[in-house]
């Protein structure tokens, strides 16, 4: 078996693009649930990096790690959505702009 003939920098560019889209999603979207999805995108970008570097180095470790990351992502999503439900119960919204009880008082 040989590694895929795609230059590694193109894969890295894809990962970086996914990561940047994820960051922008967190920074720009007002819906908390979409922000959570964006975080998932960021984690996937990291996973992609792990997988491509694993292939280039010819070691399995990167793949193993991406498996772990998926498990962590699942746990994070579970807790995050639970907290979201908790917030929805007290605030009746998931708009991040309306979660502003805690701030620097003047």
């Amino acid at each position, binding site marked *: 078996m040989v590694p895929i003939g795609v230059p590694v920098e193109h894969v890295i560019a894809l990962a970086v693009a996914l990561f940047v889209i994820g960051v922008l999603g967190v920074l720009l979207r007002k819906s908390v649930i979409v922000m959570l999805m964006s*975080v998932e995108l*960021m984690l996937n970008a990291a*996973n992609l990096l792990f997988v491509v570097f694993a292939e280039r*180095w010819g070691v399995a*470790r990167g793949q193993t790690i991406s498996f772990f990351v998926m498990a962590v992502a699942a746990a*994070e999503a579970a807790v995050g959505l639970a*907290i979201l439900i*908790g917030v929805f119960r007290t605030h009746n919204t998931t708009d991040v702009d309306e979660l502003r*009880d805690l701030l620097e008082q003047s």
Partner: protein
Amino acid sequence: MNISDALAGMPQILPMIAVIVGGLVTMLMAVARSHKDPEHGQLTAGPFVAVALVSLVFALFLLTQIEPQAKAVWGGTLAIDRLSLVGQGLIVVIAALAISMGAASITTQGIVRGEYFALSLFCVSGMMLMVAATELLTFFVGLEIMSLAVYVLVGFRRSDRRSQEAALKYFLSGAFASAFFLFGAAMVFGATGTTAYAGISTSAQKLLSGTAFPMQTLLLVGATLCVVGFAFKIAAVPFHMWAPDAYQGAPTMVTGFMAVTVKAAAFMAFLRFVLLALGDGSTRHVPWIVDVLSLLAIVTMTLGNLSAVLQRNVKRMLAYSSIAHAGYLLVGMVGALERGEPAVQGLVFYLFVYGLATLGAFGVLIALERKNGRHDEMLINRFAGVGFQHPALGVAFAVFMFALSGIPPTAGFTGKVLLFGPALDAGHIGLVIVAVLNSVVSVYYYLSIVVYMFMKNPPPRQSTEPRVFSPWLTGALVVTTFGVLIVGMMPQRWIDMFAKLV
């Protein structure tokens, strides 16, 4: 590595297992008790605290039984060197104190679930894994166990808007930071082909000395993103912004818990990362790390202290105080990078002192909370005259404030001497001057609470709700108060305990 190797490694993770078992037992107890009218808070904290303390003390005992060794175990994922053992012990001790303090308000602050203890103990096991990890993935798993548990704990007051908001903010920014860390870890993996600290250290040395292939940029960017992830957890500016909101919104006992244990665990893990992955314990392969840390330290101390001066809400003030302390500790870390052993010793000593003093301060806050005082805002006026109504609490709080501002004979002074000394010795004079100036500024806000306590008359009308109190809280406060004083006056034993860490 096969199964018998794994079994041979069991004794080394027994402390962690002890804590996890404690967590499982408390979880089952919580389930068993959930039928007993939880709506009215008929939950007695005693058995839970007892189980938690037994498991933590047992874990501490097991830790003392383990012989430290230089080589990583468990397939190179776990260190059981002195840094790891002492770090785990430090976290176990501080967590035991924090959990005892929480016992008082478990029934009064809208938290009627015994799962609080289970989650705290799981959280501690995650921290122990973090501190002992010598491999990025293992560290990450520990980090996530700790973080997820703390996110939930922050949101534990289910009916309180602030608590929920704090949990969400902490969670989202935490997940965001985790993703940054992971992205960085992937880059480090790409540059070095491994995630074990020892391997990263070797490769980094080769890469940066220029004899191997030039993937330095990948390594530098990756390591920097990892540092950013750590900086988030220790609440260093500009990655600190979750801290004031989360500290304010969380139940006070959780704030105390996370202010000390999360910071201690993150710092110990951070220390291992910069010392052993980006260096080899005595030398550093990555020269820029000192500049990055110095810059972070200066910004963190200054902004933390200036913001704390403004605060009227004591929980927020302590949040900024903990941010400022992250800055002081970063000064110590600069010293550790430059000078190795004595500086590491000073840094861990200071973490210990910071833990005792901050925990004690939050313990006093817990003791001042009133039953059903869910929206107790802990404004500074609340402290007027407290020194006369409850002299012991007042004196204890004053001791903690003096310790945090570094005034002798409290341990804070000794700690600061040991913390700043190596950085100065290494020639970072400007950094140390900024640090000392900052601790001068910090006296202003620490003292203002003491002034309110002892030099203002209490407001005429006071809530008649009974205060929250328990023997566990009293015990923990006594331990922290005398700890701060005794460690300050007779520091040598404690300093020796933290010696020879790398």
